[in-house]
């Protein structure tokens, strides 16, 4: 028995060794092709989340389609935020990748650390706020889609109760809730938003439970800032309505999804890779605060709104108007007078919050129940 086990073990070691040997033999071949740009991606989870990482995967596929044989893309999935990330990013830089996209907030410091060691490699960090000579940042104005969600929710709700599921009480999520509230109150002053914090980006069962609780408490429209399609599936089952997150989730909830805000990273990736190939890559000169130098929204197609469905034509028309309004700049979501839900004035009429102020949000605007935890 023992001998068989040892033999099996040796076979496994041999097989693994062989695979690694194969791997290494490929690297020098690729390095000889000088016209090929090597691009690296670091993913937090896998495209299987059907949300955040899946959206990045779609962007990566657009890159491959656009450049074809001119780029060689390497992806590392399931990279935890922390020391492991440093190791993975360093490996990608060592492997000859010329530009590396790190696609989660927690990769911020690891990215900067590795960037210092490899001054010739360009880094693009998603959703971060720290930059350096060879580290640029990119983010999406997710909140713009949430304003339109608010408009639709305000027109569609019968109970005037909106259930919102947030991941963590950070500025990014809070500005989404407030943008939703602004949209909601632009059409319906009686409706209110109740927020449940899941304290996780991804836990389908907890997201589903939160959705069930919202519905049991009387909400008939649900919105989420977490990653899985679980909330919409519950809405579908219980006869409520809701909005898709990061990607089009209508396959999961054909009767419940009103529309989805889709993260469209592809054009940004393509633009940055193109700049690199033309020797024009730079870290930009955008205003130096949280959101970094590329912060695109509906106008630049980094945020896309899917088809309006499961709603009457009049509502779809109002939603379209809101969408056009944001695109043309006619609607400024955070224009004064802004009053928080305790009655305190945030900003008077005639003024508007600037981007920096958005990243400092730690209060709810009128229309949201409760207060920000912590």
């Amino acid at each position: 028995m023992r001998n068989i086990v040892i033999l099996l073990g040796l076979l496994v070691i041999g097989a693994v060794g062989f695979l690694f040997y194969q791997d290494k033999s490929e690297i020098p071949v690729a390095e000889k092709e000088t016209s090929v740009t090597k691009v690296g991606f670091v993913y937090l989870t896998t495209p299987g989340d059907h949300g955040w990482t899946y959206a990045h995967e779609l962007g990566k596929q657009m890159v491959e389609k656009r450049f074809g044989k001119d780029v060689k893309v390497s992806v590392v999935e399931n990279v935890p935020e922390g020391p492991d990330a440093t190791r993975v990013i360093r490996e990608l830089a060592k492997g000859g990748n010329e530009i590396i996209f790190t696609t989660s907030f927690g990769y911020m410091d690891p990215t900067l650390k590795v960037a210092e060691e490899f001054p010739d490699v360009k880094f693009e960090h998603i959703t971060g706020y720290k930059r350096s000579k060879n580290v640029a940042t990119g983010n999406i104005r997710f909140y713009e889609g949430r304003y339109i969600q608010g408009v639709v929710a305000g027109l569609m709700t019968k109970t005037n109760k909106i259930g919102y599921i947030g991941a963590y009480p950070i500025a990014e999520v809070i500005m989404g809730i407030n943008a939703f509230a602004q949209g909601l109150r632009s059409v319906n002053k009686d409706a209110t938003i109740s927020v449940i914090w899941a304290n996780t980006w991804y836990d389908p069962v907890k997201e589903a439970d939160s959705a069930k609780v919202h519905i049991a408490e009387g909400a008939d429209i649900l919105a989420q800032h977490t990653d899985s399609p679980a909330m919409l599936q519950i809405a579908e089952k219980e006869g409520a309505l809701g909005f898709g997150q990061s990607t089009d989730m209508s396959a999961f909830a054909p009767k419940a999804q009103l529309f989805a805000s889709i993260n469209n990273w592809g054009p940004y990736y393509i633009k940055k890779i193109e700049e690199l190939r033309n020797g024009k890559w730079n870290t930009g000169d955008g205003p130096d605060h949280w959101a970094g130098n590329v912060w695109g929204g509906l106008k630049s197609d980094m945020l896309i709104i899917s088809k309006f469905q499961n709603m009457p034509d009049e509502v779809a028309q109002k939603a379209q108007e809101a969408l056009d309004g944001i695109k043309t700049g006619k609607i400024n979501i955070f224009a004064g007078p802004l009053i928080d839900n305790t009655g305190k004035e945030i900003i008077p009429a005639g003024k508007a919050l600037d981007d920096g102020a958005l990243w400092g949000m730690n209060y709810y605007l009128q229309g949201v129940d409760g207060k920000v935890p912590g």
Partner: protein
Amino acid sequence: MEALILTIIATSIPLLLAAAGELIAEKSGVLNLGVEGMMLSGAVGALGAVLWLENPYYGIIAGALSGILMASIFSLFTINFMTNQVATGLGLTIFATGLTGLAGAPLVGKTIPSLPKIEIFLLSDIPLIGSILFKQDFVAYLSIGIIIFISFFLKYSKSGIILRAVGDDHQSAHSVGYPVKKIRWYATCFGGMCAGIGGAYIPLVLTPHWSEGMTAGRGWIALALVVFASWIPWRIIVGALIFGGITIAQLVGQARGWPIPSQLLSMMPYIATIIALTMISGRLSKNNSVVPSSLGKPFFGSQ
């Protein structure tokens, strides 16, 4: 209120099943930390089977089989090759997380029909109690059946007493002629079956889709639940409902704006487990019958 109670019950069922299975395994002396992994394979197996055969009931069978398969791998290593149970169990979970990610890749983005509710003639029409007790799905009834079964099995059946003997002192059990390894194989596989069905419940009822790692730590809670129940089957029902109840209460509290931090409520199940553990180990010094004495120890006797 009714909807909330139903949600609590639904949340509790995967925990209850996985914990019931693990209880039997631990009673036979096998500490299988791979519950999370077995639940994940149950989930992916169930989803695949339902997509293929288009009947949610096959999902239960497929979930059970996937769980048994994972448990067999664990048994082979720990019982036959006598590897360390803790390390192998952790390894099983890591292995299953990767394997289910791979196997589940083609299932991403697909949705399946849910397990139907079974109504019992007339009884289902009783207000409140009817829909809570007599209008559940098959797995919910099954899980209660399993708890009743293992209670009687452990206490009154000969096989159950032998199983406990193996868990309490495998050398003595071996010396009077009981097949220790065989009994542990069966017990571990029963644990795998229950965990598999518990995992299958997640896509079959709670959120009908596949996403990687969708059990999100429920296997670990099930392990804690066994300790919380101090290896007594009916206490698992209570424990699972408390765990589920606190999870939901925490969400309700937020929706209604109770002035309790949600993080504090999220901690409650774990605090309860630590308290239960402390109480048990306190009792242990006086009375040695709570924890199976051979738990986690490999059996080296020849067979």
